[in-house]
């Protein structure tokens, strides 16, 4: 049951020193670029840049390897699925067809298809290091403060903070309930039939949900007593003031955003066509 998850890794690095707000803004810029563009040149540049940032963050590859392996596996399946469902998608997008070799019917392999799927994969490679870095270098409490700073209402930011705070607790509850139900002879593993398994899962989920509803009651009473939500604003213990480096970073990312948009949309479509 000890499943690993990404969490904050405390370390001294230039990336850690940036305020949460900066990292949040940069991450949003980064994902919007990666979502919009299919321009191979930009994707390659962004990918190399994110590798560079990853190195200076002093996060070790080993620490996030489990997620990376999972993502690689997912990407592989996704690529196979794209090929199975639409082996000529690349031809449709780029408008030409360079046949590499024939395998009967529509499954003929073309350079366009390979190029298209390489771009799909590259798109993920671009955003993954940035996303992982954002998660492991931002303190959860500071993350909530940052959400508030960029304009999200502090009530909602606080809800996010609560969620992050209680994920480990709920995970522990889940494990406890699951173990005690197993001790009573309820089998959750694949040895059981599907219908039985669903029923058995309910025997864990129901107590978990009822105890969580109790938690909601207790926590909201405690917050009510402390006068949460009385004022229009709220200060955050973890919020940090902007430094020079934050301003520079944000300006840099805005520039990257503008350049990417310009290059991508320059020829009137999201795809870079080398053919």
């Amino acid at each position, binding site marked *: *049951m000890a*499943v690993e*998850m*990404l969490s904050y890794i405390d370390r001294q690095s230039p990336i850690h020193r940036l305020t949460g707000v900066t990292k949040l803004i940069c991450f949003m810029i980064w*994902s919007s670029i990666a*979502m919009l563009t299919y321009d191979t040149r930009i994707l390659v540049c962004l990918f190399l840049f994110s590798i560079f940032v990853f190195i200076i963050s002093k996060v070790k590859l080993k620490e*996030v390897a489990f*997620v*990376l392996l999972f*993502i690689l596996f997912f990407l592989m*399946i996704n690529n196979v*699925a*794209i090929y*199975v*469902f*639409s082996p000529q*998608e690349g031809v449709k*997008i780029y408008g030409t067809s360079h046949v590499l070799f024939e395998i009967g019917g529509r499954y003929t392999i073309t350079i366009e298809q390979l190029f298209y799927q390489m771009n*799909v994969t590259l798109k*993920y490679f671009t*955003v*993954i290091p940035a*996303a*992982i870095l954002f*998660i492991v270098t931002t303190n959860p409490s500071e993350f909530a403060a940052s959400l508030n700073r960029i304009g999200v*209402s502090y*009530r*909602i930011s606080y*809800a*996010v903070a*609560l*969620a*992050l*705070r*209680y*994920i480990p*607790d*709920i*995970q522990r509850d*889940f494990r406890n309930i*699951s173990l005690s139900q197993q001790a009573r002879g309820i089998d959750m593993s*694949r040895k059981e039939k*599907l219908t039985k398994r*669903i029923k058995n*899962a*309910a025997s864990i*989920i*129901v107590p*978990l*949900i*009822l105890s*969580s*509803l109790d938690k*909601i009651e207790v*926590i*909201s009473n405690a*917050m*009510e007593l402390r006068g949460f*939500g009385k004022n229009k604003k709220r200060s955050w213990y973890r919020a940090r003031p902007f430094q020079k480096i934050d301003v520079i970073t944000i300006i840099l990312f805005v520039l990257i955003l503008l350049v990417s948009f310009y290059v991508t949309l320059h020829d009137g479509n*999201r795809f870079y066509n080398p053919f």
Partner: protein
Amino acid sequence: MKNNLLSIKTIVAIGIGAAVFVILGRFAVIPTGVPNTNFDTSYGFLALMAVVFGPIAGGLIGLIGHALKDAIFYGTPWWSWVLVSGIVGFLIGLVSKKINIEAGNFNVKKMILFNVVQIIVQAIGWFLIAPSLDVFIYAEPANKVYLQGMVAGGLNMVTVAVLGTLLLGIYAKSRSQSGSLIKED
């Protein structure tokens, strides 16, 4: 507090709800045997929370919960589906007033209303919005994403129909029924 959109209880419900959504979505997923397709029990829970705490809580639990789940377990949020989780939670929440689960009865009529709504909402979400966003944002082949949407959406409908209904029934029973006290003469 009266003219405030979000009461303290709703805020806490969003926070805890999102955390439970994350854990259920990660650990209480039952594989169907077909690769990459699961009965995702977290949607049954999302439906319950949406009905109990209303559309805003439902929408935000879906949105925050799904985004956090993707982020901490899979490295990066898959935005198109995250958004749809939020929409589904919000739309199911719209019937919360009508079902009024706090009154403590969840009869056949309400059960049917709940299921009709959840099926329509999820059909719009998973069959239409999610795949269209995939095509638009990620430029994936249309037939692939529509099939994925069909399978995932269908499974989610079954999960909500079975688990969601069950949970609502249990929740209703745990409330004291309105009008259960009789004034003695």
